[in-house]
């Protein structure tokens, strides 16, 4: 049985290989007939018909990082909840209490974040 659990992943790898080959092969075949004229302007980035005056990769607003960090925190929390949810029926009352404690901590953190204004975009 344990064997078949792992074997169940084989089709996924096959699928992955096919999904990978599909664009590669198509791109390669199409290369034989598709036109290619290039040119300096064509290889330059689009900015509404104006030559961009600076590199696009500059500083980003700090909020993106804040949100990313918050995401990591909360997403890990949900991952913890998955196994709990599956055996919830067995855990019964103990499970409920445990989850309430867990979520309680989460909610406290969440409220704190909102109070701090970390989620206010403006």
């Amino acid at each position, binding site marked *: 049985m344990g064997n078949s659990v792992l074997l*169940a992943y084989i*089709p996924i790898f096959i699928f992955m290989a096919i999904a*990978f080959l599909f664009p590669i092969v198509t791109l390669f075949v199409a290369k034989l007939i598709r036109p290619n004229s290039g040119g300096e302007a064509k290889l330059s980035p689009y900015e509404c018909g104006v030559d961009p005056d600076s590199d696009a990769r500059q500083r980003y607003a700090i909020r993106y990082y804040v949100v990313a960090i918050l995401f990591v925190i909360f997403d890990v929390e949900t991952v913890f909840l998955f196994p709990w949810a599956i055996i919830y029926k067995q855990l019964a*009352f103990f499970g409920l209490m445990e989850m309430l404690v867990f979520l309680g901590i989460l909610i406290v953190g969440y409220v704190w974040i909102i109070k701090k204004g970390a989620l206010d975009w*403006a």
Partner: protein
Amino acid sequence: MNLDSFIDWILLPLIKIGILFGLLSLVIAYLTLLERKIIAFMQVRLGPMRVGPHGLLQPIADGIKLMLKEDIVPSRADKIVFTLAPVITLIPAFIVFAVIPFGPRSIHIPGFTIPGLNVQVAERTTGFFITDLNIGLLYVLAVSSIGILGIILGGWASNSKYPLLGALRSAAQMVSYEVALGFSIMGVLMMAGTLSLVEIVNAQKNAGAWYVFLQPVGFILFFICGVAETNRAPFDLPEAESELVAGFHTEYSGFRFSLFFLAEYAAMIVVSSMAVTLFWGGWLRPFPNIAALGFLGLVPGFLWFALKVLVFLYFYLWFRASWPRYRYDQLMKIGWQVLMPIAIANVIVTAVLVLWLGGSR
């Protein structure tokens, strides 16, 4: 590896993958036509009519054209990442389908002997799915969030301002709705007690009701987050045409651009399929436990599944034709400050109810 294992885990999946891959490409292609047609009808016009009867060959023409369009890799771009990004987006969008059950385990293959080799092949039963992982749901969530990486990388690698803005929007949007999405399905998990998608559908059969009736809030949250995760209207900010020209794929041309498109439409189908599987009873006919409606069972399961998926795809198009899009900060606010509290509350309420009702049984 013996022959049976080979057939079970390589040969049969390979055949199914072949069929699924072909079908999926076709469905995605025709989903674009469906979109153009349906939105056209909503806007009192006809939509594509000239390429094939009633425009039926339009997706084929578009596909060939895009394939043979010049492939531009901007000189200032990060070339390796730029070329890989669409592929990174596409692969997850496809391989998610490996675990989605389109129908029950009901395909019977009679045993036979391969003539000449004198090898006995045993009788076996297989299902309308490629593989049934015991952590199917987790797999779907994990793999489908990889797709967004391709979008972020593509936008970043272009080294152009509009794509970069699109990529940043996409990243922030993805992370904001992923959490609520995770919470929204927790109720289903509690009731089904399994992560296998096949088992979740079976659990709905046993429960006698599709989970949407037990988890209406969860379903609505799931679908909203799903629409947001697929970057579709009214959450289509990463490619908001009137704001960011073409968003993250502004610098992409031809086939690479179409890969992003394929992935987006595949993701729409994934979200619809997941909504159907988790909440709308998967391949089950309506009222699966009412014998009086047994004639509905004459329609094969995968057709019920397809029909339900189509309904959700229609919703997608309907949204696009009717609603304006949110602004960036509003979108974030909805994700974090509206959907998330509701989702957490839903988890707690469900937990209490499951315990209460389950305990009294």
